[in-house]
């Protein structure tokens, strides 16, 4: 079964300068037990996408088209109360800054038992569950950790506690928004390995957002490449990274310094900037910066199937 | 500009300022001319606000009183700002021990009730506008300095300040060019909202006889004159009190509107 299905999602914000069309016809799926990555740079719309899924769009934002289906249910028509019931036990989130999840004035143990309030367990059972979870994320001396406060832990540990909290209720979907971006390299890989382990044990799906291509390649089975609010390419990680077909994906992979195996004095870049999303052009959104641009690119590009499951939204892709 | 109170505030303030600036044009009478035969006249066409116990035209006295109120308010506020900003910058940016000493002094000053300060200063300077200005400065400076100090402390470790330090910029330059422009905004709005308070201090001191000396037409002095005669000739007290009320309301509305206009923009910026 598909845990999350996004179909032609459109999100707009009303601003002083006009309507900002932040997400345009975004479609992808997160199957059961699968880790799906979203790759994109600043302005690609990843935060808007997560907020739309969680029902947390700002007051001036609205879903102007399409649907978000979680386990078959259309989330765009769900009441705020029902959404609150879903967030936490069924869909949980880990953010870039663990302090987004951790209350600095409440002990870790108290927070972890608080979020179990719907479980109907006794206080002792909730504490037991918290300790087990902390042990699973390799927090040393978990019983003592329950009485400590977030500031007593290092950045890497706080992030692991946040992950423990997110996975404790065994959600169907974990949304991880740049969870390792603020961590050092060795800590980042340890956290990624931890996520992989836990995902295999719990069997949840993971939607993993990052701009770190190496981490996506290692962790994610499927990948969705976003640019300026649109999905420009998607497929399995192997398909997209080994055979990128959309010019943006190609250039993005080229730019990653990790891809350059030998030393070069001149690193590739993508010149130009994201266009103003209040004024979306009719044609391909990437055209102004594209090295393969042709006159046909002034019309809306179709989604071309490169292979089974591998799709790119571009005129210049031969199927 | 959908703020009715703000518009009203602007109107009132302009009214007061206009009255003060053009006092001689609007009121032809001499505010200090004593005319014993015209004592205690009620308001009429010849005397728009009536006359006081010495026959002086109250309307002219009120308008000239506006000059005093505004000049004291502006001068004293400007002085408080200048001193408060300098002290606040030094406290925030300088060595820790200096900061501690200055905070002690500020807190000590703040704990003095205004009336006590006024009395103490009057013994030094005698009742006069000088005393009023010094009282205002002593009352306002600790608060202003505190605000600047807190903001300066926060910016002291900002990266753009470190960048300036690494370039070799002197402390004076850093305070003047990098820190001051970024801390002064909220303070200016606060100070404009304090102007009614300053006017009230001047009026209060003059009412108590601690401020301007007769025959200078301060609103507080007029209020004092009218206070004793309020039963039979209430218009004197009205002449003294009404401008104080209108000015206070005007500046308060204006200041609050300014603050509301600037705050959300500050949040939305950058």
């Amino acid at each position, binding site marked *: 079964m598909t845990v999350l299905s996004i179909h032609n999602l459109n999100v707009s914000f009303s601003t002083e300068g006009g309507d900002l069309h932040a997400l345009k016809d975004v479609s992808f799926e997160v199957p059961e037990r699968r880790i799906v990555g979203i790759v994109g740079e600043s302005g690609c719309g990843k935060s808007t996408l997560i907020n739309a899924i969680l029902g947390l769009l700002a007051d001036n934002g609205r879903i102007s088209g399409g649907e978000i289906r979680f386990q078959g249910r259309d989330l765009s028509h769900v009441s705020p109360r029902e959404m609150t019931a879903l967030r936490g036990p069924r869909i949980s989130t880990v953010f870039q800054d663990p302090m987004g999840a951790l209350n600095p004035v409440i002990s870790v143990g108290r927070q972890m038992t608080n979020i179990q309030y719907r479980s109907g367990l006794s206080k002792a059972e909730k504490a037991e569950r918290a300790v087990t979870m902390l042990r699973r994320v390799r927090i040393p001396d978990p019983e003592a950790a329950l009485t400590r406060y977030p500031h007593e832990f290092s950045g890497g540990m706080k992030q692991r506690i946040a992950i423990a909290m997110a996975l404790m209720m065994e959600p169907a979907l974990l949304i991880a928004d740049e969870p390792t971006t603020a961590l050092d390299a060795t*800590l980042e890989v340890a956290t990624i390995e931890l996520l992989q382990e836990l995902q295999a044990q719990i069997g949840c799906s993971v939607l993993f957002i990052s701009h770190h291509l190496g981490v996506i390649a290692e962790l994610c089975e499927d990948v969705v490449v976003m640019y300026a609010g649109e999905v420009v390419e998607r497929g399995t990680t192997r398909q997209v*990274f080994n055979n990128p077909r959309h010019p943006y994906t190609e250039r993005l992979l080229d730019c990653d*310094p990790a891809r*350059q195996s030998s030393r070069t004095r001149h*690193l590739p870049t993508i010149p130009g900037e994201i266009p103003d999303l209040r004024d979306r052009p009719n044609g391909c959104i990437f055209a102004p910066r594209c090295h393969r641009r042709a006159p046909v690119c002034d019309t809306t590009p179709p989604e071309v199937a490169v292979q089974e499951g591998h799709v790119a939204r571009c005129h210049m892709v031969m199927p | 500009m959908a703020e009715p109170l703000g518009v009203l505030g602007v109107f009132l303030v302009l009214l007061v300022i206009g009255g003060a600036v053009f006092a001689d044009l609007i009121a032809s009478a001499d505010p200090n001319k004593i005319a014993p035969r015209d004592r205690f006249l009620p308001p009429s066409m010849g005397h728009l606000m009536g006359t006081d116990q010495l026959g002086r035209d109250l309307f002219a006295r009120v308008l000239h009183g506006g000059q005093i109120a505004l000049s004291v308010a502006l001068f004293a506020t400007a002085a408080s700002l200048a001193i408060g900003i300098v002290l606040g910058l030094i406290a925030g940016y300088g060595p820790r021990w200096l900061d501690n000493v200055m905070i002690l002094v500020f807190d000590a000053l703040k704990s003095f009730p205004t009336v006590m300060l006024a009395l103490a200063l009057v013994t030094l300077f005698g009742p006069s506008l000088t005393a009023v200005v010094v009282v205002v400065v002593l009352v306002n400076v600790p608060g202003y300095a505190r605000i600047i100090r807190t903001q300066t402390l926060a910016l002291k470790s900002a*990266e753009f300040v470190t960048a300036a330090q*690494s370039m070799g910029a002197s402390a004076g*330059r850093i305070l003047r060019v990098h820190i001051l422009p970024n801390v002064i905004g909220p303070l200016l709005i606060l100070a404009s909202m304090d102007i009614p308070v300053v006017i009230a201090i001047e009026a209060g001191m003059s009412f108590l006889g601690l401020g301007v000396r007769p025959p200078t037409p301060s609103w507080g002095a007029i209020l004092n004159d009218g206070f004793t005669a309020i039963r039979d000739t209430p218009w004197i007290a009205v002449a003294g009190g009404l401008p104080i009320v209108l000015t206070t309301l005007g500046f308060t509305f204006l200041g609050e509107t300014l603050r509301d206009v600037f705050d959300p923009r500050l949040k939305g910026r*950058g």
Partner: protein
Amino acid sequence: MILSVRDLQVSFPVGRLMNRSAILGVAGVSFDIAAGETFALVGESGSGKTTLARAVSLLQPISAGEIAFDGKRIDGLRGAATKPLRREMAMMFQDPVGSLSPRMQVRDIVTEAFRVHGVEADLRAEADRLLSLVGLSGDFANRFPHQLSGGQARRVGVARAIALNPKLIIADEPTAGLDVSVQGEVLNLLNDLRERLGLAMLIITHNLHVVHHVADRMAVMYLGRFVETGETEAIFQAPAHPYTAALLSANPEPDPDKAKDRISLPAEVPSLFARPKGCEFHTRCPWAQARCKTEAPAAQGTDRRVACHFPLSPGERPPAVQETTP
């Protein structure tokens, strides 16, 4: 040598009154940078690399050691005496927009050094010249920092740093906060300017891939000490210190088929309050042996230095580990 550092130590006092002690942020570091050379300081959070950079630029007082710039001792300089030095040594900061004064226009930001040092010049013309050197058009001169993108703000930072033709630029995380497609811009620019202006550069970063493309020589820091120093290419080919090897393996490439030959380290870095005995890395080192727990290794070698009792041979893998269930 543009910069020479010998046995540098930076300690921070902690505690008050009765129980005062100190922790060593930089615990004895020595290195040289030649004119025109790019040297990278690599380390993770808590390694002391930022402290070292600040100490070298005299923004942080040192507790022991010597620093010499262009042949002259500078570590004893205080206050006004440091000013002439600051023309020769310029810094670039981590936060691209935050390191620019929010109410100053770009024109004034990039020419501030002229004013600080009293250098007579046509400031408008200089601003235009500097902006074009970093690839920004003239109309950027009127903008304010909040109107710049991350990449543009970085370039303004570069322009500001090169204003008075310094001999050394210290760049703190030059690619932090930049999208991948934009990182190359800054690095290419720095490389370009190096060649044109003959600049030496000290780059502080935790991003090893950046180091590979930009630095001639590098040093890896751990808990305030250098564990390995040498030519970048040589170290990348065959890291000799276990920590270097672990760092290199911890940066995944965007290649899903690449075999995972990761060297995993236990995640927690020891606190500076409780430095491990012997070799300070032994608590996390997959190759640690008995000697490592008691005896601190001295750095060996000249151009290529390693502080390890058992430096790795090329391609050496960690010994098989017993899996203990947590």
